[in-house]
């Protein structure tokens, strides 16, 4: 009899151990230097703090990937790192969960841009900026509008092959106030005006599509100035010692968020992870590995003084910043992209 109960106790113990081991959270993120920074600042410390295993994978922010997982009922991922437009779309499709800040134990008002996303907790803020090669452009450009000044700053410039940010910049350079940009862009005249401004530099533009291209184009001397995501230029300056400089004037701010698909298998672990990765300390720590701004406002004070000036959310860089409006782009993106393509072909 004794032996049997002992065996049961052992079995129960083994069962408990195995459930403890099964605790894990599957996270999908964008890969590259960005995911590396997440490993160092979030994944590893989270495993250490909670004992929950982080199983990570990479994807290309394909909405179809999330949809197919949720629709087929085979949800493998528990937490997604999503970009802003994908978040809005996925939320509209009803394939990711609405965020309940209270349940996560987070204070919504602490997160920059939280009001824009029903279904995601903002994690980083990156900047659409311009950058130039200091050895090629003399005098050096200082403001965004200089990109449109071919006389003082001659040479090829590179822009992303997408209307997003380009139309906003064109309007701002044409004298529209930052706060008014989306109002103006919402009218036919406003769109015409933006394209007319882009027309003035069109012949000198090289169009890039992948985020790795801008620093490459600058390094090869293919262009003298380029739009880019700030992190890519930062890497080229710090890691590859390139003579590049970022123009923070009129940077466009955009987000990545954490989101959970509907029907996540490890929902509790996923929520624990999001809460963990949204803390001020952990977010400040991430800036040690990549130059994106933490979405948690409290993190700013905890960032090292020598790192802060390179972040899009540094107070100095925020002075003339504007926010890319994901809602505007999901409303008008289709039409403007078509218009942009036909304008390119002309």
């Amino acid at each position, binding site marked *: 009899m004794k032996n049997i109960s002992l065996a049961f106790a052992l079995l129960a113990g083994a069962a408990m151990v195995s459930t403890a081991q099964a605790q894990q959270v599957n996270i999908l993120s964008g890969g590259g230097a960005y995911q590396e920074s997440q490993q160092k600042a979030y994944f590893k410390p989270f495993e250490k703090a909670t004992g929950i295993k982080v199983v990570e994978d990479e994807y290309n922010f*394909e909405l*179809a990937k999330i*949809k197919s997982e949720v629709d087929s009922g085979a949800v493998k991922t528990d937490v997604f790192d999503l970009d802003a437009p994908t978040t809005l779309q996925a939320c*509209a*499709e*009803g394939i990711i969960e609405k965020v309940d800040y209270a349940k996560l134990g987070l204070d919504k008002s602490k997160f920059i841009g939280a009001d824009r996303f029903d279904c995601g907790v903002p994690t980083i803020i990156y900047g659409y900026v311009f950058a130039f090669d200091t050895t090629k452009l003399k005098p050096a450009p200082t403001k965004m509008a200089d990109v449109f000044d071919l006389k003082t700053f001659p040479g090829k410039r590179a822009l992303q092959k997408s209307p997003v940010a380009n139309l906003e910049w064109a309007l701002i350079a044409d004298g529209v106030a930052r706060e008014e940009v989306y109002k103006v862009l919402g009218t036919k005249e406003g769109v015409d005006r933006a394209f007319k401004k882009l027309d003035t530099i069109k012949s000198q533009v090289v*169009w890039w599509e992948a985020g790795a291209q801008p620093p490459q184009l600058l390094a090869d001397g293919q262009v003298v100035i380029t739009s880019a995501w700030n992190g890519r230029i930062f890497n080229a300056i710090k890691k590859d010692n390139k003579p590049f400089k970022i123009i923070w004037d009129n940077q466009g701010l955009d987000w990545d968020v954490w989101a959970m698909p509907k029907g996540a298998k490890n929902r509790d672990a996923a929520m624990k992870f999001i809460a963990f990765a949204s803390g001020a300390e952990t977010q400040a720590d991430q800036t040690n590995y990549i130059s994106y701004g933490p979405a948690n406002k409290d993190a700013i004070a905890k960032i090292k003084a020598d790192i802060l000036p390179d972040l899009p959310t540094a107070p100095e860089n925020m002075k003339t910043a504007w926010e890319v409006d994901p809602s505007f782009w999901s409303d008008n993106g*289709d039409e403007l992209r078509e218009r942009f393509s*036909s304008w390119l*072909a002309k």
Partner: protein
Amino acid sequence: MTSAAELTIDGVPLKQRLKRTELRQKLKALGLVLPLFIFIIFSFVMPIGTLLMNSFVDPGIRNLLPATVEALVEWDGKDLPPESAFAAFVADIKINQQNGTVPLLGKRLNYEISGIRSKIQNAAKKIEKLDQPPFKSAVIAMEPMLANTSTWVIIQRGHSIFTPNYLLNALDLKLDEAGQVVAMPEDRAIYKSIYLRTLLISLTVTLATLVLGYPVAWLLANLPTRTANLLLIFVLLPFWTSLLVRTTAWFVLLQDNGAMNEFLIALGVTNEPLKLIFSRFGTIVAMTHIQLPFTLLPIYSVMKTISPSYMRAARSLGAGPTYAFVKVYMPQTLPGIAAGCLLTFILCLGYYITPALVGGPTDQMVSGVIADAMNRDLNWGKASALGAILLGATIILYLVYDRLVGIDNVKLG
């Protein structure tokens, strides 16, 4: 002694017995191909069928606004719909609000009415609180877009689960308010030119691979095997190189101060660097590089089977080398040319990463647009329509090709 049929040893007519054996043989053969057959049905025919359906079947509006589309059936489309339709609309929206499907409705309507997505979402929040008629005046006052007759025409059309919109849009056409097919405004008409561009680029690349590949194939076929194999490895190298490495290599060669331009400037051919990359030229060079083996190998394997005695015979009968080559040798390689060119052309239609990386602003091919509609916009109706038209065009071209070359003449080796 005149029996009607010959009998086998167990008394069954021979004919019957033979039939039975044959049937068994046939079933056995069928059993062998059955797995492949089922595989093709499930992995090819069905998905493509669903895809083609998606391009003209879309019950989205009907599912989300069932009462409204019913109430709009009788509406003449001239003035705003009657109060009853608005009442149905309010009821539908309330259900959508409860189910959390308002964003889906907004997205669906936004395909046809640009900018309505967020407006519907905002209006829905207000409509939820409406519980007293008159609904019409209240809804109109809420959102100017809902005071447009055209918005209601679109909703009315949603009554049918069939929609011509996706296919029309993919051809730069649309339905106007009166239901007539009209051209897209010029600044939004992009797809026709993208299709033409796709065909043109594919055709150019096919020709380029043929012109470059044919002599090489001949050389390979006529060299001693050892040398030929070594050369073949060079031909196959682009096969084994990753797309990004290949593209980067072209970058180094073709950019403004790259090897090619520096060479040309040193020679004095040009003073300014030529636009070799981020242009149509760059796209075609990079694609030709990748496609060369696809055109070359079928030609090569057909050439290997051509006996040299034909050429010898032609020469000994007095034909000059060129004449013999053109009249005797080339016609025999035609099946290889046909196969190689068909293969390359059809593969070219599907390119999109290469044009995106080394092409200019006007080198986007149709597959890129389809991928965006699929992955980025989740607009599968649009993706399906674009795909259906590409498939249709390919089939037509194939039939023309069959007429010209004869598909029986295609030989892979």
